[in-house]
């Protein structure tokens, strides 16, 4: 039985200004389209809800609340909380009223009371809002938004300017503090490393500083120079230089070291969550945890929505350019805002492309997404997602990879080694 689709991504393709490194589907100076866009978004959500079969969400399917998730639970699709993720773009450009309308429409798809609801926020935009940041953040909490993801990116103001960010490090901190005061108990900070002009020493200093903030979650990304972004062009022309691969590797290693020392558990290649209430490992109803699984377990503050991606779960997506995945199909919405609005106004799903997925796609994606998790891919998860045993499909390949020392096989499944985490693509590419 397919579990009901319980994850929803909502794309807000508006920004006050484009960042130099960004190649996402987002537009600056289209503020006059926000109202019609929200209307279209709500209409799309309603269309989605009509298409979904409508089983009640209080079905026997055990939905475990974030708070009750034991810290060492073996990761599985069934135990994930339902989730809504507002990504962008800059979702924090929306007014509380607009967000409320979207959430209302989304409630037909995802039970708001039990869901993890994340909103990506840009510190610069929050502070620039007409409303005081604190009031806005309180408003978000009241709407049921319970997780905030702040795009801090760097604590070095000149670098923030090169990136095209509109905030300063001090403003980012004020934003974080305000979010805490507003009652957010799950706050993620996005940072980048391998930034123009950055050194390993600077990065370590930034880590040391930001670790004093006490955030709940970190997402640390090595800068990717995406083609056709202003930053890539500047680097190409030699106007800006970025650290080489060795320096970037050293920064990544530093991050792993500092975050672990400060009590954060890495659970994915770029994601860490604060470890809460260190319970003794015991039989906890999941039954799969062995003592050697400590480091392949899942911290309670892990992002449920992103876990859905890494577990190759089904998820819906709404908004311009958003991508949904309901096996055996993936769909991509129309990327241009006006085209998107027009399609929905005409009463159609605003889908630009349906991509059929084969069983092989399902196997491959389950592997290369799943192996990103420190918990790896368990035999149980692979069977649950793919309906077939892992060894039947990938037995030989896994043996070969194990010999390179990039992955390790355990009784319960397979995961990247420390070295494999640094060289993940060498493993992932073997599955595509």
């Amino acid at each position, binding site marked *: 039985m397919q579990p009901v689709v319980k994850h929803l991504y909502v794309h807000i393709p508006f920004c006050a200004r484009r960042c130099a490194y960004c190649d996402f589907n987002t537009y600056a100076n289209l503020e006059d389209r926000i109202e019609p866009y929200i209307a279209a978004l709500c209409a799309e959500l309603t269309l989605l809800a009509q298409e979904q079969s409508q089983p009640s969400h209080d079905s026997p399917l055990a939905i475990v609340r974030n708070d009750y998730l034991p810290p060492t639970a073996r990761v599985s699709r069934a135990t994930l909380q339902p989730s809504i993720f507002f990504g962008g773009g800059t979702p924090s450009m929306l007014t509380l009223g607009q967000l409320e309308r979207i959430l209302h429409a989304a409630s037909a798809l995802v039970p708001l009371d039990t869901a993890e609801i994340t909103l990506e926020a840009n510190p610069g935009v929050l502070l620039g809002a007409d409303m005081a940041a604190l009031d806005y953040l309180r408003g978000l909490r009241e709407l049921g938004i319970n997780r905030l993801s702040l795009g801090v990116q760097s604590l070095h103001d000149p670098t923030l300017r090169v990136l095209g960010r509109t905030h300063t490090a001090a403003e980012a901190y004020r934003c974080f503090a305000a979010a805490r005061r507003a009652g957010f108990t799950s706050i993620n900070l996005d940072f980048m490393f391998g930034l123009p002009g950055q050194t390993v020493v600077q990065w370590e200093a930034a880590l040391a500083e930001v670790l004093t903030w006490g955030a709940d979650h970190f997402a640390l*990304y090595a800068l*990717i120079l995406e083609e056709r972004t202003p930053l890539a062009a500047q680097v190409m022309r030699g106007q800006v230089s970025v650290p080489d691969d060795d320096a970037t590797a050293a920064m990544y290693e530093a991050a792993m070291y500092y975050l672990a020392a400060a009590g954060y558990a890495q659970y994915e290649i770029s994601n860490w969550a604060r470890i809460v209430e260190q319970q003794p490992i015991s039989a906890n109803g999941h039954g799969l945890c062995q003592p050697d699984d400590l480091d392949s377990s899942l911290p309670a503050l892990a992002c449920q929505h992103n876990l859905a*991606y890494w577990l190759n779960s089904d998820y819906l997506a709404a908004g311009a350019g958003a*991508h949904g995945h309901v096996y055996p199909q993936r769909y991509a919405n129309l990327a241009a805002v006006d085209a998107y609005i027009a399609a929905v106004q005409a009463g159609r799903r605003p889908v630009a492309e349906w991509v059929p997925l084969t069983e092989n796609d399902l196997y491959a994606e389950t592997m290369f997404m799943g192996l990103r998790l420190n918990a790896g891919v368990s035999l149980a998860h692979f069977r649950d997602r793919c309906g077939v045993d892992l060894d039947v499909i990938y037995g030989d390949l896994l043996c070969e990879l194990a010999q390179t020392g990039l992955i390790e096989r355990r009784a319960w499944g397979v995961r990247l080694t420390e070295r494999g985490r640094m060289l993940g693509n060498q493993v*992932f590419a073997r599955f595509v």
Partner: protein
Amino acid sequence: MHEQNRIRNFSIIAHIDHGKTTLSDRLLQLTGTVSDRERREQHLDAMDLEREKGITIKAKAVRMHYTASDGLNYECNLIDCPGHVDFTYEVSRALAACEGALLVVDAAQGIEAQTLANVYLALEHDLTIIPVVNKIDLPGAHPEQVAQEIEDVLGLPRDEVILASAKEGVGVPDILEAIVQRIPPPHGQRSQPPRALIFDSHYDAYKGVIAYVRVVDGVFPSGARVKFLGTGAQAETLELGAFRPTMMTLPELGAGEVGYIATGLKVVDECQVGDTVTVADNPATTPLPGYRPAKPMVFAGLYPVESNAYTELREALEKLKMNDAALSFQPESSAALGFGFRCGFLGLLHMEIVRERLEREYDLDLLITAPSVEYQVLCTDGEIMVVDNPSEMPEVSKIASIEEPVVQISIITPSRYIGVIMELVTSKRGIFDTMDYLDPQRVLLKYRMPLAEIVVDFYDQLKSRTQGYASLDYALAGYQEAELVKLDILVNGQPVDALSLIVHRDFAQSQGRELVEKLRSLIPRQMFEVPIQAAIGGRIIARETVRAMRKDVLSKCYGGDVTRKRKLLEKQREGKKRMKMVGNVEIPQEAFMAILSLGEKKT
């Protein structure tokens, strides 16, 4: 059909970019051979590759009809000829088919080494030369000075020089008149047994090998059985005719005429450039002079990246060979690269053209090893071995001496570059021969140099060190003994035969060092550290290390970008496919050609 005295056969000698193609187009246009409507830019260069490289690889022949100022109609045959040192023999055959040649010199650039070499070839064949100074419309043109240079250097009187701009059409009618008035008509004997010179050929899928011929004596009737005096092959004439500019059949080809004979032969080998063709039942016995079977000078191994493409590669080479008598190939195997072919080429350009055609037209992924020349090795047991593959060089203890091919090179350069050229030539083991001033600013330098040094990167270096001003020509000048050693390259401790080189003892150390440095920059980081070493007879003379890859992972991968990230991973995987696994190291294609780009950093 025209009487011989109304036939003019001519060729165009020009340096690359001096305007040969534009002038050819103008002539075709002015004589109505192609209408304006069908006029395609650059009519004679049919192959894409030629157009891209701006050079003419295969000679072509076009028949034009021109009514001259004397009111008579003339048949003018333009025989196009290649303009690159690799193809000197082809040029000489094309010239041998003519009575005259247009010498086209750029009004801004003046005479170049290539031009000079080809003019001498034309003079050897007693051709009447009509000097044309082209591109007089260019801002940098100094036509008078160039006309004077033509008189001083080539002894062609100033008043015979025609000033022209083929692009603007200026002077083109004068050129046509001069072709008719100055170039003598052919004077073959129609009554003699037929003889025709093959100056080019190509393979046609329907008509077999098409021989491009200049009939010297007699008459070739359509349908006659023909015989090739050099190769001894015989064939039916499926069709004969002339190019106007597309193939037009004729009932016969008589003495003095230029045209084609479709032979139905399956490979151009049997119908080689320079050979004499005659009619089987009325055969001529004396071949026309100058025939020489095509002889490759540069050799390299060609290997499929994917070893299962070996058969495809062989079939592709066989097809290319149908059209290219100068290409030779035979199977060879390499411990590092598996099964492939040792191929012989006229020169580096020829090699590059063959490689590109294999990749483009046959969609093959190829590895090509560093080019080598043919060494003659005298062994201690008295045996003489011919070695064109460094990995086949016998052990040092078994070698008594090694001889290598040498060439005479001619360089024409502005005199301010004499110093840098001297330095370059000396570093390539060249020995100074003569120096002649063509005019106060320009010098003709001659050296003797090992061919092996030229096939590597000499031409590119000459061009870059002289800002493109110097031009080069070379001709084989025999063999000479040299202190040569085999330089082996070890990757991750394993010798890679396909990377071995023959180098001069005195340069072995520095070339070994440079080569391993270059290889380090070309071989991508692997999951482990890879030492790269250069060795002579087991002694390591240089070492570099490709450090292990430390980080290679997509840091960001969420729902929305699964498709994109997947494509990135697929691309990464495809990239690996382009590399050759040697032992457990992935070596990219360029690494095998690393030797070609040594010394670049010096310039």
